[in-house]
């Protein structure tokens, strides 16, 4: 790594492309789509539609369960009338399939006692039972988004992106003896390393596009230009330390080295950071109004897809157990506190408002996705697979069966919407197996799956 030009990033990207390795292609729409098709010829393509254009996958987490009576349609089959909570999705009905009858059995206590909120979060994308611990030896399972994301390593600049509107932590242990790691993370890189989500939209934006100030952007590119030699030395340090520490500590060093490798992979991609789409302005921070906060985080997801910075994202609207208030819709008690409604009518009404508030924001996001054209000429929504749902059915009961799940997006022409499908009590993971296969990742089982949900 030596040129006599100060701080010029290496033209590594062009070099790699000649080797047939596809990396960041800023603003796909400016590129002929065959480039992509050529770029991934050697193995079964991952994250592409049947036409060879990018296919995206997203998971959105809805906290504290729902009021079932206004969430689930009364009948299965074609959706003529939407249930009240889902009404905001009206214009989008044909891109949404309501799925009922999916279970997360591993979120049940199964002998571990209290802690349904922590488990709901932890199990949602892993399908595994969280090891009950306040800290020592946290363990769950690799999450489905990461199973797909690791196949996309090196194909998009970021293999995945994690977002959350639950940035602040409370003190103490989180939920009945479970470490907070279970409650604030959806995405798990491996069974004991969560991928902590980004909760500041500005930071998420800068991770995608660099700083919006050109001076700052240059400074940061220089930093990445020196990073390769910077990281060359640390492996030796890790090896020396590795020889001296205990087995448990070695796991930590292994995770560290894995992270070093991931950062190194970014060295090439960052020098090719695309400009953000013209219609997008860098967010300035966390908006005060929650609806705006949700919108700006959804926007980060949309532009990450639009620019093909990543094809896999997870977004935790709020962690399960969140006690957020909603002054915008005049809900002044905490969500979690309300969710134990004990069938009191006014609490149920407020909870319906909260559910609807979240679905409203989701509908705005889907519309944004629908109204943006992809390189394929179809909409971003058509070439996406989006799972919206939560790990608790009814906040009053903390049950983990018949979960609220919406499957949205066209999946590149592989998913039909506009109906209500009852899976009749199979593991949620069956859906994940199916969706991973649609993404081109060949897995037969995942978590506690008992097969694949063919009709999804």
């Amino acid at each position, binding site marked *: 790594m030596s040129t006599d030009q100060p701080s010029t990033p290496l033209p590594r990207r062009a070099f790699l492309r000649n080797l047939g390795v596809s990396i960041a292609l800023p603003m796909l729409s400016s590129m002929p789509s065959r480039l992509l098709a050529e770029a991934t010829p050697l193995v079964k393509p991952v994250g592409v539609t049947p036409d060879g254009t990018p296919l995206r996958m997203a998971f959105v987490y809805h906290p504290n369960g729902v009021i079932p009576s206004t969430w689930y349609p009364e009948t299965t089959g074609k959706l003529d009338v939407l249930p009240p909570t889902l009404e905001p999705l009206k214009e989008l009905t044909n891109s949404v399939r309501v799925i009922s009858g999916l279970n997360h059995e591993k979120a049940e206590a199964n002998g571990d006692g209290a802690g349904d909120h922590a488990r709901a979060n932890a199990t949602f994308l892993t399908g595994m039972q969280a090891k009950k611990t306040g*800290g020592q030896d946290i363990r769950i399972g690799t999450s489905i988004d990461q199973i797909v994301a690791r196949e996309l390593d090196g194909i998009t600049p970021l293999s995945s992106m994690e977002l959350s509107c639950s940035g602040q932590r409370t003190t103490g*242990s989180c939920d009945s003896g479970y470490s907070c790691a279970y409650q604030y993370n959806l995405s798990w890189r491996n069974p004991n390393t969560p991928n902590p989500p980004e909760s500041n939209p500005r930071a998420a934006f800068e991770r995608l596009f660099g700083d919006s100030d050109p001076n700052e952007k240059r400074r940061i590119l220089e930093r990445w230009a*020196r990073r390769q030699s910077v990281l060359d030395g640390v492996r030796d340090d890790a090896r020396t330390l590795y020889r001296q520490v205990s087995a448990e500590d070695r796991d930590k060093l292994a995770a560290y080295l894995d992270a070093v490798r991931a950062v190194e992979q970014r060295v090439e991609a960052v020098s090719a950071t695309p400009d953000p789409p013209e219609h997008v302005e860098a967010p300035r921070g966390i908006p005060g109004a929650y609806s705006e906060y949700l919108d700006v985080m959804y926007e980060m997801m949309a532009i990450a897809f639009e620019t093909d910075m990543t094809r896999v994202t997870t977004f935790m609207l709020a962690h399960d157990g969140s006690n957020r208030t909603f002054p915008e819709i005049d809900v002044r008690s905490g969500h979690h506190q309300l969710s134990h409604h004990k069938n009191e009518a006014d609490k149920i009404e407020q909870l319906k408002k909260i559910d609807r508030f979240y679905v409203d924001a989701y509908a705005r996001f889907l519309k944004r996705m629908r109204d943006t054209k992809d390189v394929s000429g179809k909409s971003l929504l058509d070439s996406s697979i989006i799972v919206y749902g939560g790990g608790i059915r009814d906040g009053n009961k903390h049950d983990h069966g018949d979960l609220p799940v919406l499957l949205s997006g066209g999946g590149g022409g592989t998913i039909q919407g506009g109906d209500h499908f009852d899976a009749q009590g199979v593991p949620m993971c069956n859906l994940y197996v199916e969706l991973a296969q649609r993404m081109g990742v060949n897995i037969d089982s995942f978590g506690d799956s008992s097969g694949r949900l063919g009709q999804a």
Partner: protein
Amino acid sequence: MHPFLPKIWTWLASMSAAALALAPAETTAAQDDAFPLDEHGHLNWSDFRVLMAENCFDCHGGFLKEGGVDLFAMREESSIVENPELWESVSKALRIHYMPPADHRNFPTHRREAMVRTVDAELLAAAEQEQADHASLRRLNRNEFANTLRDLLLVDYAVEDELPPDDSGYGFDNNADVLPVSPLLLEKYLNVAADVGERAVPLPIEPRQVDVYGIEMAGYNGTNRNNAYVVYSDEQRSSARYAFKHVGQGDYEARIFLAGQQAGDEPCRARVVINGKSMGDFVVEAEDIEDPLVATVRFTVRNDRPAYFRIDLLNDYYNKDAPEGEPNDRNLIVGGMEIEGPFQTEENLYTPFLKRHFGQIPNEAPEDVLRDGIWRFASRAYRRPAAAEEISSLWAVYTEENKRTNNPRRALRAVVDSALSSPNFIFRWEPKHSRDEFALASWLSYFIWGSMPDDQLFDLAKDGNLRANLESEIKRMLSDPRAKALTNHFAAQWLQFRDLDQSHPDRKKYPQFSYGLRHSMKQETQRFFEDLIKKDRSIMRVLDADYTFANKQLAEFYGLSEAPEKGFQKVSLEGTHRRGVWSQGSVLIVTSHVDRSSPVLRGKYILENLIGMEPPPPPANIPSLSTAAEQPTPKDFRDSLAIHRDNPDCASCHKILDPLGLVLESYDGIGAWRSSDDHRTREVLFDGTEIELPSQLAEYLVNERQDEFLETFAEKLAIYASGRGLDWRDQPAINQIVTDTEENDFRFSAIMTAVIEQFGPGMEPPPAR
């Protein structure tokens, strides 16, 4: 005859004759000699089995194994040391009166205590044979990383908010096992480290312009209008405010766009203040923010902290009686500002970091000076002398980057980045049995300061004199301003006042509440704890202090007889029932729901955080209790809580939790004293103590629960210091800490010293007394 006796008799038939002989005495339970104790107050195993048969086996006896606990299977005395985790929980269940269930059997306290003593003694004896195993590699958490960057690179630049928050384990966010390194986290750590590193090794910066919108300058009491901010009043809290995070030291020029919503007989006047210093007053005649007055100020920054802007309205005017149509409200409109700079000199580029390690600007330094400087820097970064191969590796980075960029400063930046990316920097490695005093220095300084050791600690460690001077070093460290980390990180998590920032009491229900009040409450608890440390007071004051720290607002809220005129002062709580930390507003708010107080949460708080006697978490799927009616009377509320204690499923825990919390019902959901006596009833605690007023609770805690409190305090400190959860094997160490603390008048420095002696790396446990 007792209904359960036949079963016991069946079982007794298998026992030794000696035990049988004692059995008839069971019918006269009050006679102590039925179960004689040895000189240590312990039961013999046969008697212990008999007591278990009477009190435990109905539910935990082979046929029924409630909670998976089968005590019948514990046939030999050795089964205690063979199943330490189980017996630890048995001991606790007995100690907190959780078992046997209250409705089940009347179990005399002296026998309960004898059983607890017997189990604890066995566990203790076993623990003394074992060393608690634990991992020793700990990633620096968010605040440790930020503090270390500041102290290592001598750059005063706050970066904590740019780092991801850490998860916590065992109540603290510095727990080794929940501090993983993920790719996103590493990238952020590296970026933040590079940010600070670039300030330590600056390059000349081209002046540039930064645009700030008025809405980014909002004060506490004003409003946003389009992109502008409107200052309503001439109180400082209303002023427009902005923290300018500049890119580097030098001179700057700010151009501030101002207009006035004019009223009264003079135009708006505004003052621009930077870092508390007035930069000039401006008469703002402009009325349209599209055609504003441009107020230009020039300022110099000589450090890396943000420059704090404040724009005041000097002459507020409001006339509610003004005639219809005449403007009656004068406000200042801040449209935004442009800041241009930095305009730099050589001096701005010669930082304390460069001075310290290289003594000259890098472009002129010869190779040996650079190498030595890198060694000095790396030895501080790794918190021990850097090894030769580590320096070669950093030197390779230097030469490679110097070749690539032809710029020694850029090459040094790469060296700094490289050291700060190393696992030797990102992780603390302080093995328990290290004889090396560098490990101890590092452990101590992260414990007390949340940051790396200072020069004195390094020097003592280098000469092997740290252990010898431990006590004086601890005192020195506790009196250093950096010891605030103990308040802001240890105490704020232990006593949970960190959560106050996320508490949003319902303003309709509590008109007295404001964020200003909430902030005062947080400061109250912080100041209380800082004072405890600084004055080296007895830690018992956490339970019973008859003083606190208040400003005028808080003193009035508490109804104190003295109210400080200005700022915070130590004030007496005489004449009130508030005592200690647990009746401070901060605690009372975090243990309340947004619209009501919660006796259950308050009871849990005291049990869990102060005396370590919390019952297990509730079973799954139990809805929490809520108010019975729209406007519940205190009686409704107590009645609904009584359901808890009548229902056997709930009672075993709630008879422990609720009475303590009900004593605190004298305070509402934001901590105000309730004057109505409806909220006060005589409560019977789980151990039979009767209490009516919060001040009596303080007496109870101090007189009856001193050991439990000391033990809990010691455990929390040890968890925080060692970054791991404790178990039964740590009990001898905890006991020793309690003894040492008692012998030293409960002083804060005493418990700190004792924790360090027991848990610090390379500390030989002092001989038991």
